């Protein structure tokens, strides 16, 4: 391939973001604390500019570049725009929280953008190597973010756990990748797929590789039994970091699962042994649904409760994935995007309610929110009902599309399992709604959220309703993206 600048055009979003990170990193050095808002503003501008770059440089057909290491297709575009948008929400929620705790430093936004860059690379990875690079960039930024409040013991503990377990999972993933490389001789997904399809590869080696790779994916998603890190990290990290960590990376994890499982190892599907990787996902999904929903019932810490709720939502995403091509992948994609948007709102509201020196993280901190601020309570209610999957919020459609995919794939019993656990799940979301609407407030302190955060949470909550009433807009995008793979 001849090199000229125009061949790099599909990389424009990453180039824009990386340049912006570099500039902001330097600019931030010369700002004193009072002018730190520039960093904040510039970071938001950088994310918006990256979204614009994704839209401007897109093309109708998928493009592979960098010698098959990188791909730009409709799925990557949709996922990138989603993760950038959700990232913007997380950044906005973070501002006043960080400011009040003396943590308003440029590093938060730099690390956040680095993580986003890593995720963009994961989303666009066309081979194991670039995927792994993106993953590590994401993971390292997240480890640092979790420990961002260096005076917080629980934060440091969470970061340590996350780091050790994350490193272990990365190791597993690498080990699996090496086996697949050994079995197929290829590192790019298209090549792996071809080698698997040829049938001349050693199935045993591939199966071992698959298992280890799947463990890596399950860890990133936080699926049972690789979920142990999630509750501790969600609870220990500052809530604004949890908002980021609990939402955006799920989109990247979805991309990772799609690229590796559907594109690379699609040939190791049901016909190779007990249901192939779909069978493994089935076990992970049912376990995640059961454990996530049941353990969440008894949590009083909302961050921890939402961690378990995330685990159960991952179960749903896996159900979509294992329902496979046709409706399955697009339903899982829809679910992931909507989940990220919902989760960032849930944590964002906790960030808004946290004041200087007071963390809003227990259910009783939300008591009587309807009396303190009816609007915020309404937004939170929309978010919670969306998580529970009650129409007219979008969470219902996310679940519906997955159920439909399952029924289409002839897995009616899994659909029944899924709805059964979502009824159990509804209870703990109702507990929070109950605290907000039916209980008397404990504290009457005014809510001191900035205008930016208030606008963000309003958009976030109303998005639940908007996509619930007009789900077609996003669904069509997801379907088109999956079809073009």
């Amino acid at each position, binding site marked *: 391939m001849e090199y000229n600048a125009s061949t790099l055009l599909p990389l424009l979003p990453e180039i824009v973001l990386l340049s912006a990170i570099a500039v902001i990193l330097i600019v931030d050095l010369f700002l004193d604390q009072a002018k730190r808002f520039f960093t904040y503003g510039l970071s938001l501008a950088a994310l918006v500019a990256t979204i614009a770059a994704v839209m401007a440089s897109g093309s109708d057909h998928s493009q592979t570049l960098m010698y098959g290491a990188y791909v730009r297709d409709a799925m990557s575009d949709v996922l990138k725009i989603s993760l950038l948008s959700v990232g913007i929400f997380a950044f906005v929620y973070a501002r006043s929280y960080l400011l009040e705790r003396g943590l308003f430093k440029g590093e938060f936004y730099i690390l956040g953008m680095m993580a986003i860059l890593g995720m963009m690379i994961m989303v666009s990875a066309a081979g194991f190597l670039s995927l792994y690079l993106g993953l590590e960039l994401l993971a390292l930024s997240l480890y640092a973010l979790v420990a961002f409040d260096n005076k917080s013991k629980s934060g440091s503990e969470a970061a340590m756990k996350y780091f050790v377990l994350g490193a272990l999972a990365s190791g597993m993933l690498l080990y699996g990748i090496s086996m697949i490389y050994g079995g197929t001789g290829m590192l790019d997904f298209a090549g792996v797929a071809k080698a698997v399809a040829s049938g001349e590869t050693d199935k045993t080696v591939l199966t071992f590789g698959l298992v280890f790779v799947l463990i890596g994916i399950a860890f990133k998603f936080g699926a049972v039994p690789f979920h142990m890190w999630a509750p501790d990290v969600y609870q220990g990290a500052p809530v604004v970091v949890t908002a980021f960590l609990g939402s955006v990376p799920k989109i990247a994890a979805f991309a990772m699962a799609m690229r590796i499982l559907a594109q690379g190892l699609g040939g190791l599907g049901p016909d190779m042994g007990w249901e192939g990787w779909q069978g493994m996902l089935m076990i992970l999904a049912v376990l995640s649904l059961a454990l996530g929903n049941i353990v969440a019932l008894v949590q009083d810490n909302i961050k921890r409760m939402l961690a378990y709720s995330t685990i159960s939502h991952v179960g749903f995403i896996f159900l979509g994935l294992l329902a496979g091509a046709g409706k399955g992948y697009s339903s899982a994609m829809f679910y992931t995007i909507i989940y990220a948007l919902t989760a960032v709102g849930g944590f964002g509201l906790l960030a808004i309610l946290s004041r200087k020196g007071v963390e809003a993280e227990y259910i009783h901190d939300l008591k009587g929110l*309807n009396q303190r601020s*009816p609007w915020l309570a309404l937004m939170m*209610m929309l978010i919670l*009902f969306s998580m529970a999957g*009650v*129409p*007219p919020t979008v969470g*219902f*459609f996310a679940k*519906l*599309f997955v*159920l*439909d995919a399952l*029924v*289409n794939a002839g897995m*009616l019993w899994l*659909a*029944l399992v899924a*709805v*059964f656990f*979502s*009824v159990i799940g*509804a*209870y703990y979301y*109702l507990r929070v*709604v*109950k605290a907000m*609407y*039916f209980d008397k407030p404990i504290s009457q302190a005014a809510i001191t959220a900035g205008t930016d955060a208030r606008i963000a949470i309003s958009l976030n909550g109303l998005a639940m309703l908007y996509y619930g009433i007009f*789900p*077609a807009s996003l*669904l*069509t995008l997801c*379907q088109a993206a999956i079809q073009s793979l």
Partner: protein
Amino acid sequence: MSADWPILSAIIWLPVLGGLLVLFSGDKAPNVSRWLALAVAVLTFLISIPLWTGFDASTAAMQFEENIPWIESFKVNYHLGVDGISMPLILLTTFITILVVIAGWQVIQYKPSQYMAAFLIMEGVMVGVFAALDAMLFYVFWEAMLIPMFLIIGIWGGPNRVYATIKFFLYTFLGSVFMLVALVYMYFQSGSMEILGFHTLKLGLTEQILIFLAFLAAFAVKVPMWPVHTWLPDAHVEAPTGGSVILAAIMLKIGGYGFLRFSLPITPDASSHLDWLIIAMSLIAVVYIGFVALVQKDMKKLIAYSSIAHMGFVTLGFFIVFMIAANPEVQTGAILGVQGGMVQMVSHGFISAAMFLCVGVLYDRMHSREIADYGGVVNTMPWFAAFMVFFAMANAGLPGTSGFVGEFMVILASFRADFWFAFLAATTLIIGAAYTLWMVKRVVFGDVGNDRVAALQDVNKREVLVLGSLTLAVLALGLWPEPLVKVMDASITNLVNHIAVSKL
């Protein structure tokens, strides 16, 4: 016939948007939100009147249809329309909502704008349930109904409201998710979400039975039928008066409506196979729950149990059809059962609303629902006593009131199926009279029970307006049910003919 303008959409979205407006009007000037809510409710009712006047009773086809694509890639449409079964229920909804708004005028002092908004949004959503012809649209409205009701009971309810409302939510949610799976399954089979398309969808017997049971899980909880009725007394007791009225008058009807729109026409063979189950559950509701009502000490609980017993008549009427059709000695009469069930639904909508409003009138003054706290109310509240006795008579099924018509039709139909069914159903005329009149005796008649009763004020103009309009409705339907029966006739005949044909 189709309307020149989207009348059904107007009836759905006007109250929803009006409700949001009321919500944003806030609580700084509560009277503004009250008047605004009343205006929206009245306007909605006025808009819904053309549904009746412009209705073509000679056809079973859907009328006032609207159909635009909603989620195209999923083949889900925003498809609305009414027939003779759903149209009366929509009018019932818009009518009762006005009364609920008026009834909550003064009583609700805590966040009245949210209260009014919840009821208006609820109204729009319930009309949506009755008008939806797309299964997904139906389900969205069906579930969306839960949220305002959950808040109404939880925010404005009695002391044990949190338990009651969470129980209510989870019970109904559990019931409906299985219906969702059934709907998705039929979507997979038929390739569309059209309810009318489901009616003609060929299904094997096993499939039908599973789908029927999934529907039963949703509708039986909503009706509610014995043995899944236990959420209702809790919810009723704890709900504010308005909430009880909506719950009894309309939400319970949605379960009955579901049987007519989904279970019977979609799974006729399973319905015919399992009709013994529904008939047994209905008769247990009529007889056993009637006895349970007899021993209640709490007025609202008593009326709640009486609602369950009366709804037993509805389901009995719907499912007796198969036995009548199977009985070689009778040629006609199958239609009578369904008609009776429908009349009973509308009539119960009026009567139960009136009964709960009567209890509300007393509760607002004494803050007690215990029968034992009352006695001799007639001495201090003669006008109120007249209303209460009248509605109690209607509840007991006195000829001349609407309560009589439905029960009589169902009992008559049961005779054609089996004497003993009719016999058991007819015991309600005794048990129902016993529990209702005994309550009235203890509350209304006798000597003045205590000082608080002695200090009671009679009903004010607002309450007279509410109770008076219900009196008229009960009398009108009782003396001259013909118009209602006529409107439903074509649709019900069509339904009965449809289910007589096996899908196997």
